């Protein structure tokens, strides 16, 4: 479904990704594991079109999307739920969700999607008329995920969904992610909580210094010595 081939990317003259290759099959849950700054976020931002690859190819459903601007990428069914929520703080939760369905494709079915999404997030339904900026961190993360679903994505990318949240909220976030996975959406997830993520992932990639150094099934990586030492602190 999604293929990255020899992708190089960075900011200005600083190269972060040095030729990485990743594939995500339809219906799969794939995770990228790596230290802070290894290039995980940059990978997702490059797929989303926010960072332009300097070399390499990104294809989605057979089409080259490596040079598309972000709004074109979204229109093709790839949605990124960004690190740090990035809600529109002075808009109501309802308007935030409406913005999630901005693409023409999603806009047509917005009312139905909204109902489906709110069924998944009963707590969000209670807060619809509040300003997003007034919510707690955990609530904001839920709204961010709900907003991402509003676009009816084929591929949903999570960037650090549990970042900066209290442990108890982290558990709720993971429960939601698992429920979304269960609906059959294809998921690419980057997350500092390596143990939990590898447990739900079909496959994982280990990213170090902008290069993929290892890839295997989630379960195998969990047992791998290098992964355990470097990312689980064992």
């Amino acid at each position, binding site marked *: 479904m999604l293929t990255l081939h020899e992708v190089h990317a960075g900011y200005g003259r600083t190269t972060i990704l040095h030729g990485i290759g990743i594939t995500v099959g339809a219906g799969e849950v794939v995770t990228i594991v790596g230290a802070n700054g290894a290039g995980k976020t940059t990978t997702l931002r490059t797929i989303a079109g926010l960072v332009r690859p300097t070399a390499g190819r990104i294809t989605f459903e057979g089409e080259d999307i490596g040079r598309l601007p*972000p709004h074109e990428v979204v229109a093709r069914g790839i949605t990124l739920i960004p690190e740090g929520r990035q*809600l529109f703080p002075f*808009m109501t939760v309802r308007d935030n969700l409406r913005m999630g369905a*901005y*693409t023409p494709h999603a806009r047509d079915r917005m009312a139905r999607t909204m109902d489906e999404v709110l069924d998944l997030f009963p707590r969000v339904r209670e807060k619809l008329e509040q300003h997003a900026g007034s919510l707690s961190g955990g609530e904001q993360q839920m709204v961010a995920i709900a907003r991402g679903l509003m676009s009816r994505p084929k591929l949903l990318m999570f960037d650090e969904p549990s970042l900066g949240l209290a442990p108890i909220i982290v558990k709720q976030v993971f429960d939601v992610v698992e429920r979304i996975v269960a609906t059959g959406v294809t998921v690419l997830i980057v997350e500092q909580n390596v143990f939990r993520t590898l447990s739900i992932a079909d496959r994982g990639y280990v990213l170090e210094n902008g290069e993929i150094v290892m890839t295997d099934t989630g379960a195998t990586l969990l047992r791998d010595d290098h992964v355990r030492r470097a990312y689980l602190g064992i």
Partner: protein
Amino acid sequence: METFVQLVINGLMLGGLFAIISVGLTLIFGIIRLVNFAHGELLMVGMYLTWLGTVKLGLHPYVLAPPLVLVLFVIGVLIQRFILQPLLDARDAHVQIFATVGLSTALINLALLVFGADLYATPASGVRESITLGPFRILIGQLVMFVCGIVVVAALHLFMERTYLGRAIRATAQHRAAAQLMGVDVKRIYIVTFGIGAACVGLAAALVAPIYPASPTVGTYFVLTAFVVVVLGGMGSLHGAFIGALLIGLVDSLSAFYIAPDLKEVVIFALFILILLFRPTGLFGLGRGSE
């Protein structure tokens, strides 16, 4: 007391004009994060166009308002697309300011080249007549400006709250990257926003030309006041700009009478400096005055 009330009326009417000019400026300010130093020159261009249309075509300036709105919208779109957009990712955030400063200087002096330094008064029937309410008088042209100011601000407000495009504009202002992730074409949003901001000035030009004569530097006078309004109201805030405009209109009218006519601007600019220093977010700002 009667004098005071008359001064308040005059101030509010003047505020209506400031409001039309300022909403465009505050939109561009709040959404593109651009201080458009050429905003006043767009007004100046609009005023000369109004004069031309009135004198050469024999049309009433108010009739010229709709085509002027359109023309200025197109000019705004072109400026954003071909001058400012290429600078969007520039290394130095100041270059967009330099560009608008350059544009402003070029336009002022172009007007000086074409029209000279003379004042061009636009003739318009009825505009300078006044209606009386008991002891008070209101110039019809000023009443029109005041009403139009309210209508423009209300219309823009509805547009921003109720339409997809308006929501996308607000979303872009609040979080540019997140808006992109929602599928918003940010560059298009910026172009539309600048166009709308310029279009407001087109309307203002048609309304103000019959009252104030056009001159190359007329824009500087109005835009400096508009900057005060925008900063006072809080950058990017539509209703802030409206209330700010009325307040500055009042200050203008009252200080001219009670202090000295030639010192009213000193009062306004002193106020401006105080706001910048002590409440840079303005009355209704979102907290981006001095990051």
